[in-house]
């Protein structure tokens, strides 16, 4: 039985938020961090109190880096029980996840590569004015606490408030894993609900067993790991590319579809290989009702190297039940109007990938699915959007009689920041806020 009242709402439900703010924090002293946390724990939504039809106006989520757990005073023995990749942090594992070249942490903004990054406060708000109100409220709260500072922040707004589209124009949020025990049913064509342990610590996962918990259990049970990525989207370069490879609007839309695996409307190429079908794209009963091995083995509909096929190989992937991830996040930066030249203003998506094992789920997806140039026997290709592109990789579009091979794909995105966070349950938050006193487990005394 999932302990909904203890699991933070963040990975369990999407809220009706159209605006958000991420504040990246540092704690100068453990006591400061605990004081800050104590005043916020009651504001954090849980799986029980927050659903997709929540009547609230704002939703708060709190998560910590390994350095942050240390900065709050967690003892060395407990710190050592957290997984290796979380202890190292994303910046230290940059080459593993493809953050190389222009994506390297040396070029990240917001001090995300700094060891001083301790925590993130994620605010989701119903609208921009509520976000601004909360921002002011938090700022005042921080001014009363000595020793907690904002390293950097990011404001987000839905680029297209009527529907979830990102800056390239693709419809998003069409696929998500369903968790056993939440009562939700899988979409037609998708795998059955996954064991909770694939996303939350303290439950059996798809191996049938319960993995070891980091210590103490009070801190780790009902927690999850979050991989954060701030991905700048070069909209001008993307539109130039479409124009270069398509003479007419229809041809350009097809090129865009071949890169993604879905038309920008969301319609999957496997089901709509030649012509877009917007109604299909947003029909949740049909938009995932396809596979690759039986329906499109050679990629004539959906190229093998396209984004959605790499990020979810479906029936052509191995142990797919062990490589699922929950995505949250949104768009930031102003929309670049159609026809307007690139204005140099940063825009993109800032997203979280939630799972129970960063190395097995998130890092596997980035290292193997996104960045392996020989994925599925491809020759020299990386994911067009999430793979690290430097102008030397190709994209093959199977076609009869002869395939089309685009050589030298430009980089449509740049990683501008990333980090690994631990998202504790409510008991875990209280444990950290009280230095362990809430559970009678004493943390070491630190000045």
């Amino acid at each position, binding site marked *: 039985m999932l302990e909904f009242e203890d699991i933070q709402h963040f990975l369990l439900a999407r809220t009706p938020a159209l605006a958000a703010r991420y504040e990246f924090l540092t704690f100068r002293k453990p006591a400061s961090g605990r004081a800050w946390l104590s005043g916020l724990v009651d504001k954090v939504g849980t799986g029980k109190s927050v659903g997709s039809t929540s009547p609230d106006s704002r939703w708060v989520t709190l998560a910590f880096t390994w350095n942050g757990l240390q900065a709050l005073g967690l003892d060395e023995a407990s710190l050592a029980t957290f*997984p*290796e*990749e979380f202890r190292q942090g994303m910046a230290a*594992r940059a*080459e*593993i996840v493809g953050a190389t070249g222009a994506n390297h942490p040396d070029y990240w903004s917001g001090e995300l590569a700094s060891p001083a990054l301790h925590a993130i406060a994620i605010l989701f708000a119903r609208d921009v004015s509520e976000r601004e109100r909360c921002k002011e409220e938090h700022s005042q709260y921080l001014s009363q606490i000595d020793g907690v500072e904002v390293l950097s922040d990011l404001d987000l707004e839905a680029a297209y408030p009527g529907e979830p589209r990102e800056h390239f124009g693709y419809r998003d949020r069409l696929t998500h894993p369903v968790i056993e025990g939440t009562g939700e049913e899988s979409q037609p064509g998708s795998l059955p609900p996954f064991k909770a342990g694939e996303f939350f610590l303290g439950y059996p996962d798809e*191996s049938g*067993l*319960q*993995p*070891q918990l980091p210590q103490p259990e009070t801190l780790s049970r009902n927690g999850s790991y979050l991989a954060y990525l701030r991905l700048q989207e070069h909209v001008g370069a993307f539109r130039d590319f479409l124009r270069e490879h398509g003479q007419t609007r229809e041809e350009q839309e097809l090129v865009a579809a071949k890169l993604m695996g879905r038309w920008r409307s969301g319609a999957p190429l496997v089901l709509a290989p030649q012509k877009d079908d917007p109604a299909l794209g947003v029909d949740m009963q049909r938009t995932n009702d396809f596979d690759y091995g039986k329906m499109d083995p050679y990629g004539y509909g959906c190229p093998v190297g396209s984004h959605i096929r790499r990020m979810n190989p479906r029936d052509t992937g*191995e*142990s797919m039940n*062990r490589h699922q991830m929950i995505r949250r996040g949104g768009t930031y930066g102003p929309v670049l109007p159609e026809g307007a030249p690139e204005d140099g203003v940063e825009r993109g998506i800032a997203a979280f990938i939630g799972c129970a094992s960063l*190395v*097995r789920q998130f*890092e*596997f997806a980035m*290292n*193997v699915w996104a960045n*392996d140039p020989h994925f599925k*026997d491809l020759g020299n290709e990386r994911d067009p959007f999430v793979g690290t592109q430097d102008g030397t990789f190709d994209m093959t579009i199977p076609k009869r009689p002869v395939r089309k091979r685009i050589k030298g794909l430009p980089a449509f995105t740049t990683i501008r920041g990333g980090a690994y966070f631990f998202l504790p349950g409510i008991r875990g938050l209280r444990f950290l806020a009280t230095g362990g006193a809430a559970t009678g487990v004493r943390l070491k005394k630190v000045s």
Partner: protein
Amino acid sequence: MATHVFPKEPQKPKAVERQKEADWTKPQAMAIPKEGYFKAERGRYGPIFPRTPACYGFSVIGKVKPGREQAMRDYGKSVEEAVKADPFVLGPLKLHYLRWILFDVGSGLHFMYQGIFDTDFDKYVEDAIGLFNQTGITTVFTNLEGWPEDWRTNVPAVIKFFREHQCPSFLEYGEYPYVSADEVRKALRLKDAFSEMLDQMQ
């Protein structure tokens, strides 16, 4: 009078300089540095070992716990049965060959597990361990000293064991270098199809 356009002479294909790796016609050998790699490149669990003319592989060596020799030999039959029951059960591992060897050259009984396959060990290692567990292949390792007690739930500990007990080659040779098992099967399937076609045309 109708003019007749003669077709041009068909263009002779330019001699294409084959990349060293793509030329399966000539056997190749590759000497490898002591660490097992030329360039230090980090995978998720440790250094990446390069692809050689003998594709990818490992040679894992461990000391056998006292009294476990017969258990290990008996397990040979159980894997044989598992593969008979489902010949493609190990397909996702993209294997060419596996060898299980017991030897004692004066330091007590040791076991070597040698594999040659087409995917880098680091990339699909969790899936591989999942398959090993399913098919019972992992069981042989429980007879080795140093094998983690919590191997069922602690995949990183299992991966650490394999890496720590891996002995990289210092030289590898491939008769048909870099050719994957999939390519071998494709070529054989085509050969069968051509034979069938010729038979049909009699």
